[in-house]
């Protein structure tokens, strides 16, 4: 059963829509800024989403605002109404920050007086991403939020794929979102994984990651269902693989065995050999460990000539949104036949035996891979395809 991507919506520092993002990629634009006092007193480069998302809304988290924005674009591009009542719709979305009750004012008040305002709790309890989206569109099928750290939304797409293939629903809203927040800025800072300059994924002189924010939503549909309602969509999710390192809470397994398993499983599910992959949109966070382990595995599976890029040089690391955004970027690149320069990459790291693209590059294959690695040792791989 072929599972089509019938709609896509993206929002990140790279752009507020698919069109805007592709324009930014083509121009090599990196919309990097600095943390503001409203987000964190620590000064780091970040990839913040500009525009209408600057207004705080006490009734709705910023993550949810970003997600609804991407959802609206995805539904519109799929030619679906905003109310999906009556259809067999599942919702599977990933996040990290939005899953936690981590409101600083609430907690500071609790610590100080033993009493805390309950409004942040009410907002939190309305803010489970999948539940909120299901309510918004009237979805009545399976509904769950994946909290698998940085692979959350890649896994969400994989879960959605499984739901449709097992007949649990006809259409899945899959993806994820995350916002810039004081908590992960403190946390990643404590782990000393931030770069003080714009990140340089896969570069020999990379110093670490920059955080970003955003949301990505894919509408997945069984081909038969999509065609029945007149959709002409042709991109599809061909395979999904996932495996755990079972090694360390925060560090990738040095031999990359878990990632390799996930990639090979995704290829097997797609029914294609490794040489069919035209390019890899890598997780590429720009940390020393991630890029070395990931690049080594990619070379082992695909050979050193495989075209590799990381789009985190345009978006920053958007945590729970990253997998979905990068799956969407991968699909768009397959559709349009080009991948952007891997922003920030200049000098080859001799310890990483793959070819990272320095400029906009034509691609002609039918399949591409998007990889995600995460805290907890999670590894996820998505094979995305286009018709011949």
């Amino acid at each position, binding site marked *: 059963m072929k599972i089509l991507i019938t709609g896509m919506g993206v929002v990140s520092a790279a752009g507020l829509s698919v069109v805007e993002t592709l324009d930014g990629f083509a121009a090599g634009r990196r919309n990097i800024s600095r943390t503001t006092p409203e987000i964190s007193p*620590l000064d780091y480069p970040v990839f913040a989403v500009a525009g209408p998302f600057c207004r705080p809304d006490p009734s709705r988290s910023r993550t949810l605002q970003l997600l609804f924005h991407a959802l609206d674009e995805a539904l519109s591009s799929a030619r679906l109404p905003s109310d999906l009542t009556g259809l067999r719709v599942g919702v599977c979305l990933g996040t990290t920050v939005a899953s936690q009750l981590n409101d600083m004012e609430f907690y500071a008040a609790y610590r100080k007086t*033993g009493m805390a305002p309950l409004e942040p709790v009410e907002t939190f309890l309305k803010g489970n991403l999948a539940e909120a989206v299901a309510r918004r569109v009237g979805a009545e099928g399976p509904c769950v*939020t994946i*909290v698998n750290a940085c692979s959350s939304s890649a896994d969400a797409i994989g879960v959605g794929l499984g*739901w449709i293939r*097992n007949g649990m629903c006809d259409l899945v809203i899959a993806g994820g979102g995350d916002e810039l927040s004081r908590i992960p800025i403190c946390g990643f800072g404590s782990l000393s994984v931030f770069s003080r300059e714009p990140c340089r994924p896969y570069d020999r002189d990379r110093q670490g990651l920059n955080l970003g924010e955003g949301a990505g939503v894919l509408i997945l549909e069984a081909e038969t269902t999509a065609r029945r309602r007149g959709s002409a969509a042709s991109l599809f999710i061909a395979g999904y693989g996932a495996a755990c390192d079972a090694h360390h809470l925060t560090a990738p397994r040095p031999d990359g065995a878990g990632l390799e398993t996930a990639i090979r499983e995704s290829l097997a599910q797609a029914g294609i050999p490794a040489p069919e992959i035209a390019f890899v949109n890598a997780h590429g966070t720009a940390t020393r460990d991630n890029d070395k382990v990931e690049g080594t595995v990619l070379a082992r599976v695909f050979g050193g000539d495989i075209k590799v890029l990381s789009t985190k040089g345009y978006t920053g690391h958007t945590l729970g949104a990253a997998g979905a955004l990068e799956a969407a970027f991968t699909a768009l690149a397959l559709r349009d036949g080009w991948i952007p320069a891997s922003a920030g990459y200049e000098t080859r790291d001799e310890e990483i035996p793959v070819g990272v693209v320095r400029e906009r590059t034509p691609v002609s294959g039918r399949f591409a891979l998007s990889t995600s690695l995460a805290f907890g040792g999670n590894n996820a791989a998505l094979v995305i395809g286009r018709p011949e």
Partner: protein
Amino acid sequence: MNIAGMGLVTARGRGIPALEKALEQGWVPPLEVEVKGTPSGRLPVYAVAPETLIDKTVLVKARRADRFTRMAVLAASDALADSGLGDTLDKSRLGVIVATALGPHATTFSFLDGILDFGDAAVSPTAFSHSVHNAAASYIAMTLEARGPTLTVTHFHFAFHQAILLAQTWLADGRCDAVLVGSVDELGAVLQHVCGRMLAAAADGRIKPFAFSSAPESVPGEGSAFFLMTRAVTGSGYATILHGGAAPAGGTLQILDACGFAKDETGYGTTVRPGVPVTGYAPVFGSLLSGTAFHVAAGALMLKQQKRYAAPVQDNPHGLPLGDPNDLTPLDHVLCTRMDWGGRVQELWLARIPVGRA
């Protein structure tokens, strides 16, 4: 999909013997903790005792982990051990799915303590990495060397139901040979405060699952319940989880997961199957958003033992037929029913493993 092994950590102890004992014993008074902002300044709770979470063998790789993770690792490890399959399973094909409503919130607040006390630049990296929702799943994978897919899922009402659906797809797709699926939620001090202010506490310490009240009362609880799920029936198996929701024939018991956490439980009245005896063990486990996992454990145990445990609190204003421990007729099916705050209902059907197959 079959339940090949179970592991539980609750306020009543750890393991299947503790579950049996708790179901046999029925209701016991909850602890009372001081909570500011509540009418009485106190809150009844069912909390896991600290000594329950001591195990220097199982927790050796999780020795730095928090309570949330410890509960999950112990329950998951026990489920695998209980199945008797630990030595024969290919660990690269063992999946892990952790369901939680609220995640390791106590560690999140501990991390916020670090920010408030020491500033943004001097927080603990350990507290941060353990505050991430999937830390427990990671520790389970490391402890049991499970290298299949590992997912943590969240939903405020039906996280465990969704995890079960997911495990079914993983087994159906051939992605795994077995899946450890379970739920975990903890009751930290801040959550006690929130529960005390947002929910009505049971003044007499008794959750009343059959009251169907418009203002239900709760006794917040915590714990973890895990299940080793396999495609095929195994020798030590408990029950089969059925696909779909059609009511099977035969001796059925309906477990109502009415625990007082819904704002209005009157809707449970419409979920009761005519003529089917009902029961509910929330008074044993406490009120939990992920409480269905504990009820599935109780139901699976009853199907395996062919035994009905009495409802621990029998207040029954609607005159429902209650499950009778003296009923010795075959117990073929258990239906676990849970309703969310909006009145939506999810059901899980368990079936007895046919004699001769176990």
